[in-house]
């Protein structure tokens, strides 16, 4: 296998970090840019380029997840969904607190999904109800 093909295969693997919708749209052109910027005989993605791709993928995923309003039923029943998300968030926090109380420190990880639900509820409230 040539160096270029080797490098391209590795870049393609990195690009799998991105959401499908984004890849369908941009994968080919991002690959063109990466290959155009590659040094002669380069076989592995550089650390800075790899880190940049992973960070961008996280950013795009975040934007994808928080895109509002995502579903028809969310738009149709915004009040219900906001209450539901707040309820789920509180429930997650209570479960997390009980776990921590029982000595399972990993229970603090419940804060992350709870925060996401609160954030989505907040976004929906502003997107639809205002």
């Amino acid at each position: 296998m040539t160096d270029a093909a080797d490098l391209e295969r590795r870049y393609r693997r990195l690009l799998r970090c991105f959401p499908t919708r984004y890849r369908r749209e941009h994968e080919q052109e991002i690959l063109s840019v990466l290959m155009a910027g590659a040094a002669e005989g380069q076989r592995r993605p550089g650390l800075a380029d790899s880190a940049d791709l992973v960070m961008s993928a996280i950013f795009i995923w975040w934007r994808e997840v928080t895109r509002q309003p995502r579903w028809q039923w969310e738009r149709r029943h915004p009040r219900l969904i906001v209450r539901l998300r707040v309820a789920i968030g509180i429930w997650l926090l209570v479960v997390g607190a009980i776990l921590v109380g029982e000595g399972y420190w990993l229970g603090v990880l419940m804060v992350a999904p709870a925060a996401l639900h609160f954030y989505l509820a907040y976004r929906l409230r502003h997107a639809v109800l205002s």
Partner: protein
Amino acid sequence: MGIRAMQEATFLILTALAGGSQHGYGIITDVEQISDGRVRLRAGTLYTALDRLRADRLIDIDREEIVDNRLRRYYRLTSPGEKRLADEAARLQANAVVAMSRLHPAGVLR
């Protein structure tokens, strides 16, 4: 938008496109040249910015070409994009003029 200052990378990307449509790698090399080698955009960052600028309708896809089996998608500035860039450039210029006049009062250049 409109009130908030533009990030430098965004400003440079729009400036690169103000001279005519360009593809991804062309934008990277142009931005590097405009910024005197200071700003070197990487692929992930560039396309995150291009995707957002397109969603905001400041840029659009101009055309696509296949060169050496690789996709080249050219982007161009839209008229709202031109206006946004002109506004931002005027804002930066106004700030720079005030800064220069206070550093060198009465037009005395050191």
